């Protein structure tokens, strides 16, 4: 069970696709200008990552090492095309909203990275779970990025949610007269906010490490005195 705990911790924090690996910036920066779009892309990414990790873990015995990358890309592209078509056919209303994001996922190298680094070497259940957790790590960061950019850029939150839940509507947080902050909406704004998020993560990690080191040195000191006291004369 602790292996699964490790996978979850890696996906959500330690090897977070965005904050630690800084992968998949193209769709990340393009779509994170508001919260609803960002989370929508994130959820579609989770589905693709779980399926591609599952498919490649299942087929890993048949894929020669030398041509693994083209085969992975082939499988991922086929999966994404299938999901795109199925969405269009069976969930057309949702497709009108999320449709543009699905082909974008192919450009997200995180899918290929996880397949190569994890799914190709691990069993079905662990690989699928890794896809899920890496996806969750992607969603929370891209969602936060979208929320910050939307708030700073437009003074709103959840705008566009009526496309997914027609009964809900976005919230105007800053007064209507807020002129907006254009740079937050443009790709440079995404870089700024992303940089701050990465710095925040590094700061939290550095603090945690420092605490751990202090605790360890306390322990060692205690231990040392214990030993010193117990040394028989």
């Amino acid at each position, binding site marked *: 069970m602790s292996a699964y705990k490790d996978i979850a911790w890696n996906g959500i924090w330690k090897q977070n696709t965005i904050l630690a690996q800084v992968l998949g910036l193209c769709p990340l920066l393009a779509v994170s*200008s*508001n919260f609803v779009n960002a989370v929508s892309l994130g959820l579609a990414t989770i589905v693709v990552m779980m399926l591609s990790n599952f498919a490649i873990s299942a087929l890993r015995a*048949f894929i*020669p090492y030398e041509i693994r990358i083209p085969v992975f890309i082939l499988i991922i592209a086929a999966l994404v095309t299938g999901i795109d078509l199925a969405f*269009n*056919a069976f969930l*057309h209303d949702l497709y009108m909203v999320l449709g543009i994001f699905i082909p974008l996922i192919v450009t997200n190298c995180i899918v290929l990275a996880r397949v190569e680094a994890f799914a190709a070497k691990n069993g079905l259940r662990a690989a699928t779970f890794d896809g899920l957790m890496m996806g969750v790590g992607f969603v929370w960061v891209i969602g936060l990025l979208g929320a910050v950019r939307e708030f700073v850029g*437009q003074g709103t939150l959840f*705008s566009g949610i009526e496309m997914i839940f027609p009964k809900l509507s976005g919230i105007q947080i800053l007064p209507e007269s807020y002129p907006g902050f*254009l740079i937050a909406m443009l790709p440079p704004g995404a870089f700024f906010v992303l940089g701050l998020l990465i710095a925040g993560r590094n700061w939290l990690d550095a603090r945690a490490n420092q605490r751990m080191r202090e605790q360890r040195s306390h322990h060692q000191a205690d231990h040392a005195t214990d030993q010193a006291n117990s040394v028989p004369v």
Partner: protein
Amino acid sequence: MSEPIEVPRRESSVLRISVRTAAIMLAFTLVFTSLMAGTYSATAPLVAASALAEKLRLIGEVLPPSLYDNDLMTDAITLPPQKSLGLDEETRLWRARKDGKPVALVLEAAALDGYSGRISLILSIDADGRLMAQRVTAHKETPGLGDYIDPKKDKNKKRPWITQFSDLGFDTVPREKWRVKKDGGRFDQMSGATISARAVTNASGRALAWTVERRDTLFSLPANSRYEQQGSKQ
């Protein structure tokens, strides 16, 4: 003495590995391509049906059904690809009539010069040559910035940007004023996202000019016929 024997052996095993690897690659390609093709043909009818339903809904947005009494789906003609409308494939042009009299033409057009490529439009143009309404049907403009050309994304819900074109014709806005204000024209744009507005404005101007010029022909062609360029120069 053993060397001359070993070299050809190695070559043959390299060849065997290459052939084997290529065969596996080919097998994967065939399997996954046929999976994609299968999914495509299985979903194609459903996709086409939802595209048609979507089209009817869009026509309803630019042309209220109360204004006409004919069946638009049968009273339509086929347009071969029209460069001046920005279209590179065949489209349909629907003709609305009331009591047999021409009411409006509904057609598709596209702007190829959006900020992120193509912006597809649907327009209704009445029998007097005025643009009744237009809607953006597909675009890739920046979310939260250039996407106000789509009224669903426009923050101004009371008077979305796209509605400023309603019921205007070249009799009220001269052809050379059918531009955004930044280009010396008549129509507003949002600062910081002029390109999207300019693309839509210019495309609608081109579509209106094209339609007005051949309005009578478009109305009088038999249903389900094909519009051919009159006196077209090759």
